[in-house]
């Protein structure tokens, strides 16, 4: 009986193991490195921008004033149809200009 079980295992399972044609990976969650600085508007920014991409995109972008960040958010709406309304654009751009604004120290300079 034992031999039959072993044999059927070999016949049934081995071909799949040997000729397995499936590749499967699991990706890690968003890295904490990209976590936004807390402040007025940070939750909305996290929620809206995070719909399509991790926020590590944001924290390493060039610093910008309200106008520059408003331009970035507007691009996300115009080009990628991000679901963000006009009032939210203001809140998000305000937040980004204060948390990642020109007044804050540059963290990334060219070599």
């Amino acid at each position, binding site marked *: 009986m034992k031999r039959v079980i072993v044999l059927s295992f070999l016949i049934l399972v081995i071909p799949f193991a040997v000729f397995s*044609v*499936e*590749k*499967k*990976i*699991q*990706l*890690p*969650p*968003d*890295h*904490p*490195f*990209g976590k936004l600085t807390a402040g007025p508007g940070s939750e909305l920014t996290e929620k809206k921008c995070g*719909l*399509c*991409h*991790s926020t*590590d*995109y944001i924290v*390493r*972008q*060039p610093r910008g004033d309200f106008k520059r960040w408003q331009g*970035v958010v507007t691009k996300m709406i115009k*080009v*990628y*149809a991000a*679901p963000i309304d006009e009032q939210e654009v203001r809140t998000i751009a305000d937040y980004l200009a204060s948390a990642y604004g020109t007044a804050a120290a540059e*963290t*990334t*300079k*060219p*070599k």
Partner: protein
Amino acid sequence: MATPSRRTFLNALGLSGVCALGDRILPPMMRLFAAEDPLLSGRPLVRYPEKTDLILLTSRPPQLETPMRYFDRAITPNEAFFVRYHVSPVPTRVDLDTWRLKVGGSVETPLELSMDDLKTKFERATVTAVAQCSGNSRGRFSPRVNGGQWADGAMGCAEWSGVRLRDVLNKAGVRKEAVEVLFNGLDKPAFPSVPDFMKSLDVSRILDDPNILIAFQMNGESLPMLNGFPARIVVPGWFADHWVKNMSEITLLDKPNDNFWTRAAYRIPDNTCGCVEPGTSPSRTVPINRLKVRSFIAMPANDARVPIGHAVQLKGIAFDGGSGISEVQISDDAGNRWRRVALGKDRGPFAFREWSADWTPPRAGDYRILVRAFNTLGESQSATPLWNPAGYQRNVIEQIEIHVV
């Protein structure tokens, strides 16, 4: 295997002192890339499936950068090869039993090819070629530009094997109205409103070029999922925006592709340098295409300390858009005098060309070593970086600092 503590990792990276991290509070197990380079220092070092430790650019979609030390050789290992995606979610599961490469649109006979079909019904072709992201080194632009803030690790060179794209098109039979070939992969945007990542090439460009492949092997192995399993487009000599990964569909178009990724993205100023006055906008643009000449010093690492009285071995790579590298030179006096260095094995005009040199510092002190390459057309690199608003095709003369003590 025991899990190493955070301190073990930091020690291993030369960050033994907590002060090296400033006052940032790090979550446990966050490992950082140690580098003097401000663009890289403090970036997380992460290990993704089928990958070794790479420098994180973004988590979603996954974008990973290759550390400079891997560019001391012509072939970049699969596990160290950079990762760049445009939209999320990216494919994480592919079953070859059901996967098919569809060839449709303006063709006589639409095809649905399995991996077996690709492997048995077409002649095999292999090319060693550099994949470089258009925005490689974007983080070094001054004035800075928006976009992925890559340092110099969004490039790699592999031996790609598969079938010729033109053979597949000929099998399907290209109708004479067809003008462009559109590539689509399995990556899909989070919302239907977000433009799916697709790229196209002219039909004539493909039919004339036997080196353009549908590759299903990279350095003799199947592709890592994050580098395009089960098959990707390879366009030797051209920037990697056309090298669509995780391929699923090839469509012959009667009209030029109007997709966002061709019409609006991946465009450079329409002039010989592909550049404009820093801070200004180009009046006319064209799709980015051929790689510019570049060269790098991978060894020793930037900011290395070496003892006086010994020769220092310098190693690195050079490449261009397919005419081939003819000469690499180094300078230790800010570019006043240049010295020709030895080139390694020639792996074809699309590959990284290894170079090496022994450099003996005349006295103690701080040195800057510059490197530049020439291709067979006489094109080279400039001491002044080019600039364009999208941060594409940087190819300035590179340099490292060496401290002789």
